[in-house]
């Protein structure tokens, strides 16, 4: 398969502040890639560099066969010639144009005939369920509708790649869930290649074929959502991809991937991940949903008193706390509200990760 977008060793500074420190990535035809990372890691910057809105210092960017940026040759194609679709977090709809004119603008710039413009705009609006809103102004639309107009505007001239910067983060919690299913379905249906920025790992996993995790201007790890979630290479990835318990455990012994821990006076079996080695203080984590609660003693478990249970609707999140003085605390899900008391929390060895 061909790469629709290739970024090679991109470096970018703001003033003297390095923001991107050598990012390489590619996007294949028909693929949806999520750019994930904590705030300030440079996601937006990378997207903007691809779009031509920021000038990198070094590296190269190709869109399809075209080279659009080459740091070595000092070549940089202006944003308007890159022919990309870009959806902003704030949607950035032009408030003085109707929905129709917002969407049609890209076609007008491409000097299409009036009737063809009308056809294509109506088409894409219908496709996005906005057919009846063509004559409205952006401020007369709800957030979700605005977001779809922004997408329509970016799609209408069939760009090879569409870039989305946190397209869902301005939506209500409720709307967001629907929108993400809609967006995924739309991208797949229209056979687009999309690069999407988000800082919400759940959103990234739900929507993308591949995740690129950015950390401090570098790519920390990339892969399918499942591999990122289930087999993180680094502590950062592991912590970022899910809800975790971080445990103050001491490593006692390592044997290949198998590790022996001591936690709260209990010996536990765990598995090593990443490149960590040696004994002593290690970083030990376990996903909240992997902790199993039992009222009776079980294997590879520690015993802790229940502090409180938070209702989450479909389940409870229960908080266990070690004796005063230790900073051991553990969260676990349970289907029902637990009675106060002490419980055995089983930490399956293959899910208890040491970095």
């Amino acid at each position, binding site marked *: 398969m061909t790469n629709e977008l290739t970024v090679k060793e991109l470096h970018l500074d703001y003033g003297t502040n390095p923001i991107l420190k050598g990012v390489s990535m590619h996007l294949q035809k028909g693929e949806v890639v999520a750019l994930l990372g904590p705030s300030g890691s440079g996601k937006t910057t990378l997207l903007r560099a691809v779009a031509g809105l920021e000038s990198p210092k070094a590296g190269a960017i190709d869109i399809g066969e075209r080279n659009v940026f080459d740091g070595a040759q000092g070549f940089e*194609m*202006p944003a*308007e*010639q*890159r022919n990309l679709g*870009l959806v902003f977090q704030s949607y*950035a709809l*032009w408030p*003085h144009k109707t929905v129709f004119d917002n969407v049609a603008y890209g076609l007008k710039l491409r000097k299409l005939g009036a009737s063809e413009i009308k056809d294509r705009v109506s088409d894409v609006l219908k496709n996005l369920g906005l057919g009846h809103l063509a004559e409205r102004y952006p401020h007369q639309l709800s957030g979700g509708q605005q977001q779809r107009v922004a997408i329509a505007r970016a799609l209408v001239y*069939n760009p090879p790649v569409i870039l989305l910067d946190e397209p869902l983060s301005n939506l209500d919690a409720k709307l967001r869930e629907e929108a993400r299913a809609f967006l995924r379905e739309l991208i797949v249906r229209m056979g687009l290649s999309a690069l999407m920025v988000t800082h919400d790992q759940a959103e990234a996993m739900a929507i993308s074929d591949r995740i690129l995790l950015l950390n401090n201007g570098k790519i920390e790890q990339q892969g399918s959502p499942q591999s990122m979630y289930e087999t993180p290479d680094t502590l950062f990835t592991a912590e970022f991809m899910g809800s975790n318990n971080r445990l103050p455990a001491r490593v006692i012994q390592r044997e290949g991937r198998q590790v022996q821990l001591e936690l709260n006076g209990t010996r536990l079996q765990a598995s090593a991940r990443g490149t960590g080695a040696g004994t002593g203080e290690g970083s030990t984590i376990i996903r909240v949903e992997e902790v199993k609660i039992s009222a009776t003693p079980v294997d590879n478990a520690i015993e802790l008193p229940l502090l409180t249970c938070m209702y989450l609707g479909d389940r409870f999140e229960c908080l266990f706390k070690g004796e005063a003085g230790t900073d051991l605390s553990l969260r676990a899900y349970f289907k029902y509200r637990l009675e106060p008391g002490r419980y055995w929390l089983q930490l399956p060895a293959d899910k208890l990760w040491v970095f």
Partner: protein
Amino acid sequence: MNTLAHTGRPRLNWPRGVVVTLATVAIFLPLFLIFYQSFLNAPFFMPVKELGLDAYRFIFEDPDFAVAFENAFLLATGLAVIAVPLGGMLAFLMIRTDLPGKGLIAPCLLVPIFVSPMVMGFGYVVAMGPVGFYSLWAKDILGFIPWNIYSFTSIVVIAGLTHVPHVYLYASSALKSLGSDVEEAARVTGASPLQVMFNVSLPMITPALAYAGVLVFFLGFEVFGLVLVLGDPEGHMVLATYLYKLTNKLGTPSYHLMAAVAVCLVMVTLPLVMVQRWLLKSSNKFVSIKGKGARSKAMPLGRWKWLAFALIFGWLMFTIIMPMSGIVLRSFVQYWGEGVQLADVLTLQHFREILDQPALMRGILNTVLIGVIGGGCAVICYCAIALAMHRKPDLITRFLDYSVLVPRAVPGLLAGLSFLWVFLFVPSWLDGMLKGMDNGVALWLSEQAIPVLRSLRSTIFALWLAYSVVWLAYGMRLISTALLQVGPELEEAARAVGATRGKVTRDVTVPLIKYGLLGAWLMVFLIFEREYSTGVYLLSPGTEVIGALLVSLWATGSTDLVAALSFVNISLVAIGLGVALRFGVKLHN
């Protein structure tokens, strides 16, 4: 089918180049002439002249200069000290609180902006001078007159109070773009409206206040008409009137001395610009994080309400109603003063005389034209310059940023003279150059283009250019405020769909600041209405404007015509203003 122009390399941004070059020439060519002149001992165009520091030596030895300089500094400082806090407070009361009568006050605030200070000063003489009718009234009641309108303190106070609206304009537009949540947070914490104003609102618009402060400080150095009218009796002199004196002091006009004074002024103001830049540098501190739905309910002033209203009314009374009533009264009477029964001397004679004089009628028309059309053109130029600086944080932008303030540091009279020089000598230098090149094209140019250039001087274009350059700082700020409110992503979105920079400007940026531009047009119109000193040397028959006519009428003693003409002018502008506001032109975005 999706075709976009592909040129490969980014092209030279020539529209920007043209704008920047033209702006630079318009700003610095006259300044350069002044600078050059200040180092000569005779007019620079005379065959006999010598380079030297004579001019500086003379003014530094002249005790009058020291006095004038000190006074000018006091005046400018006092003016800023009075106008900045009051303007800020006024803006707060008008924008944020439930002050009664806001609808009425808002248009009144503009009056001091478009009434020429000379007229204003004259109004004060008639109203509050030693035998002014308010004074006589006060004397009847109190037995003495509690004020002396000719004292330097009074001049400073009047100048300060009449410049409050300038500060108000900047402060209010800054306040409007400031989310009210920070103020509400203070109120919930327990701050009364007054405390909110002093502890939160005003500190947060420090950048706008700093800008306004520097601008009014400059204007303070430039105050001329007011001091001319009110300062004469007790002999108070500031730099602008000192300049005026210099035209006569040595018998023949001494350009080198005037130029030297102007250079001193520019030198004084430069550090100020620096200070202001420095203040603004830490302004990222002031960028507030805006929440969604930045809505606000007017802050209830409670028992302060009527006190605030009374204060504002007092200000209106003193800066607008009293001097204006002086003018109006003067325009309807034959004469006035101690012991005159006004009812006996009422007349419409002065208005009839205006009708009889075609030059005056033409002056009124020209003034309106230069205000409306010239103001519009000026706004277009300001907009072009602002766009050339818009989102391009480079050296050129920084350079322009500094440059726009400089012309205002030169007193209008001298600025006008230097523009006359530009229009006179630049064509003849060019002519000389072209003739020297001695080829067909050059000769043709010298025959065809030079006369056109020369004839520009006696058209209203010359006047317009001088006005526009002098008020550059004022106008640019109005427009850049509007531009700042355009979210960058709106422009970036257009580039992403394939619009070139030029198209982005045309299709997105400019339409979005449409209302800001209209408001700026109105404000520039007002300021052009009242301008006079800059135009003095650029007028020719047919291009008279009221401001300059007033000065010359004043000098020849037709004070009754001055009053009547001012009355007509103020009424016209007020009507125009009413119409504009009626049709939805916003005063600030």
